[in-house]
């Protein structure tokens, strides 16, 4: 059975503005949460640590003695 769709009630500009403000406030709060998390991640320095580990692994494999042919 198809749903009856009545004519939507007209919404005033003030009401649109109110919902817009709600949405913007939420976006700002979520942005704030991301900033909070970013500061935590920055302390871990994952990019620098990853680069150091990859470099260390490469230099470790480079310094392994080569097998000398008999």
């Amino acid at each position, binding site marked *: *059975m*198809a*749903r009856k*769709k009545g004519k*939507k009630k007209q*919404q005033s500009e003030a*009401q*649109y503005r*109110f*919902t*817009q403000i*709600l*949405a913007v*406030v*939420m*976006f700002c*709060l*979520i942005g*704030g*949460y*991301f900033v*909070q*998390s*970013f500061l*935590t*991640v920055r302390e*871990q*320095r*994952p*990019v620098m*640590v*990853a680069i150091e*580990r*990859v470099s260390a692994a490469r230099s470790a494999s480079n310094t392994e003695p080569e097998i000398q042919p008999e």
Partner: protein
Amino acid sequence: MSPKKASTREGQLVSKGDKSSLSPRERVLRVFAYVSLLAAFSIGQIANKTDYQALLQQQMPDAVLVQSEERSLPVVFRTKDKSGEISGDAVVMADGVGYGGPMVVGVRARRTDDGARISEILVLSHKETAGYQNRINRANFFRQFAGKSVTDPFLIGEDIDAVTGATVSSQGYTEAIREAVHLGAAQHLGLEPSWQTPEWRLGMEELILTALFALAILGAYRRDKLGKYLRVGVMAGALVFVGFYFNTALSLGQLAGIVMGYIPHPKLHPVWWIMIIGALGCVIVLGRNIYCHQICPFLVVQNVLQKISGVSLRIKPSIQRQARKFVFTMSWVALMLIFLSAHPALGSYEPFAMIFSLEGVGIQWYILPASLLGALFVPNFWCRLFCPVGLFLNEGVRARRTIRNKLVRRKPVTETSVLATDAMAPGGEIDG
């Protein structure tokens, strides 16, 4: 039901699931998003690889650590005393998966005549939220391991008591300790495995959750009064059980955790498995987002608030049209944070954990009241504009439709055809 007119503005999808309608700029942005996520994932995996010695040294700064039998598991460290002699104590490294991700503990054990006994448990690293870890610490959970023999079963409900309100964390730690200690007893001490192994525990919780999914699927396909009562009943059950009792609402962190391999053993956390299989299974097998329409407890909270207020305002159309892009962007930022830190909780901005278990950190405590306030005035306020789980599941439904249509060589998916099939299907997509 008259179909919506397809939007033709540049940069927006003309029809659902029709990727060829993306503008060049959108395509470039998508490629950049996927490549950057892959890069963040790789960096996170390399940077967060467990360095047992470094972790242990932080807890025992004055000790000189020597790793014994480098190539065998579990990893065992011994300490040297001042004279350079290796002591009788050993620290066995134990890995497990808790509520928030992987955890590493050090089990300090001392040799005895009959094998070895545990003297101390050192928590070396974890991804649990602060609330759950605090409960574990306040209950002195690890004290019950001290003095136990390495051949004890270490099973929750047998010789170990879980912490109320931190059951999954308790199980994760116990499983880690059990596996490491038993493996160490067999490998390093040569003891015969005489201990109990965990068994399947399928009880009322698992039955209730399975029944909720089954009834939700039935309710999604029935258009009569019974279907309506089923849907209402399932939603009420979801609020009580999925929300407050199990606190197992899906989050972006959980979904990202699957990609990172943070998957608990089904014997130890069957509820998690039922949730994931139920939600993803409905998307893949049925092509319907049953979770968002009936199982999500936060949806029910929003519906209840709407009924209380009786006010139903709309979002400005210009914002509503961009909603999907907003959620994509927020999800991308969240996933970047999760992958770089290998810590699911750092990117999970959803308010579910706060409302159902009162666990939250910092600004999260402001996101919850704001989302509830929004839900009072705007129907499905969170779902429409912010929910990453809904986006992920809806994109899964879209992808399934596209693949299916290509396989059966139907006409291309258009706005009209999608809405026509969705008109009678409450388990379809939530429009952004």
